[in-house]
């Protein structure tokens, strides 16, 4: 059964017609051409599919696209806004917070949401917020450093 949905993606109004069973992730990737968000585990655990729905992190691989009808979605492609890179993205480059990069879109989306909510997070707050973003390459140390650096930079 197909249905039409309207949603705002990265600030732009989009309209698509999709089957009801289309996940938000698949809709972003295949119907809207935004392949930045990735499917990793497919069960909402690893965080590679993290997008912001009305500013809040969600797992788009277990969200139905229809449930985003009328809402605002921010993906990794929309983080930078008019800038080239969001400070969080730049910090991940400078501090080595990524390696293979497959988890990185989810990491930076989540980190941006963290710094929006808590501009000056402690390490404990970083670890709590980012618990749902798995990484197999870095061992997380440089992810924490990257987020700390982004927070410091934003304060400067």
């Amino acid at each position, binding site marked *: 059964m197909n249905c039409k949905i309207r949603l705002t993606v990265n600030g732009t109004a989009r309209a698509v017609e999709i089957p009801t069973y289309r*996940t938000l992730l698949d809709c972003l990737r295949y119907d809207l051409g935004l392949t930045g968000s990735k499917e990793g585990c497919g069960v909402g655990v690893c*965080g590679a599919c993290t997008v912001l729905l009305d500013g*809040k992190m*969600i*797992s788009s691989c277990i*969200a139905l696209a229809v449930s985003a009808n009328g809402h605002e979605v921010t993906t990794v492609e929309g983080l930078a806004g008019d800038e080239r890179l969001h400070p969080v993205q730049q910090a991940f480059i400078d501090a080595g917070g990524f390696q293979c990069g497959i988890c990185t879109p989810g990491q930076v989306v989540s980190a941006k949401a963290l710094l929006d909510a808590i501009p000056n997070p402690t390490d404990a707050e970083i670890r709590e917020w980012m618990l749902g973003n798995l990484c197999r390459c870095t061992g997380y140390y440089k992810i924490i450093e990257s987020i700390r650096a982004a927070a410091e930079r934003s304060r400067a």
Partner: protein
Amino acid sequence: MNAFEYAAPRTLDEALAVLREHGDEARVIAGGTALVTMMRQRLLNPGHLVSLREISGLDRIDAANGDLRIGALVTHRNVETSPLVQEWIPVLAETFRRVASVRVRHMATVGGALAHADPNQDPPVTLIALGACVEIRGAGGGRALPVAEFFRDYYESALQPGEVVTSVVVPRLPAASGAAYVKFLPRTADDYATVAVAATVSLEPDGERCRSARIALGSVGVTPIRARAAERLLAGQLFGAELLRAAGEAVEAAVDPLSDHRGSAAYKREMAAVMVGRALTQAWDAARVSARGTR
């Protein structure tokens, strides 16, 4: 996933009508974390999904006669961060905070978690220890059920076909009381509990002796359970190692855990006793502080 019809009615009555019309073929969806995962794994194949998202009034946390009423669509994250919950029933906020990760808590709802009836979840354990009640609406009207009676079997709740959880009412702790939630996580930090215990302890006017206690456990069987035999041992007693040991023994006899990836039944049984001791110790400490405050 297979094809399905999707409805997002504006009122609860409309939602109930769709459920009644399609019977077994229809499922309610709120946050969708459990439901969509199961549908993607082809464990469930409903022909109709009824979303509750557009129904107003189900996402509120309100004071109600000194109790808290938490709407079914309230997310875990909202319970965790609610100033009202943090002030009135902090152990409830702390419990919701232990669920998975912030991201999952943004999506998963209170009502959805209850209806899912997974015995490894955190919130039901504390809700049982607090004596909370589930409010249910069906085509025939509304009813309420203590959370302790809401779970029937493995992934099976007391919801009849066509019924929906609308809210849960959580009483505040009485004066001179303390509560604690202990989640035993020996593997990774984002896991379900190997064993979980929620305990509330209310003290006599002397501020030391236990007047009553409630102990609930999760991940120890096909449903969360209340350890009534252990509770009875505590009434009238002073805190002490021997009392905790006896309570632990009573709990071991009361639980019937399943062996799974998180531990064997034998291990979970013994850990239930250990965690009960820890939860009671924390709850008793909190009760003493509360008792001193009210004197």
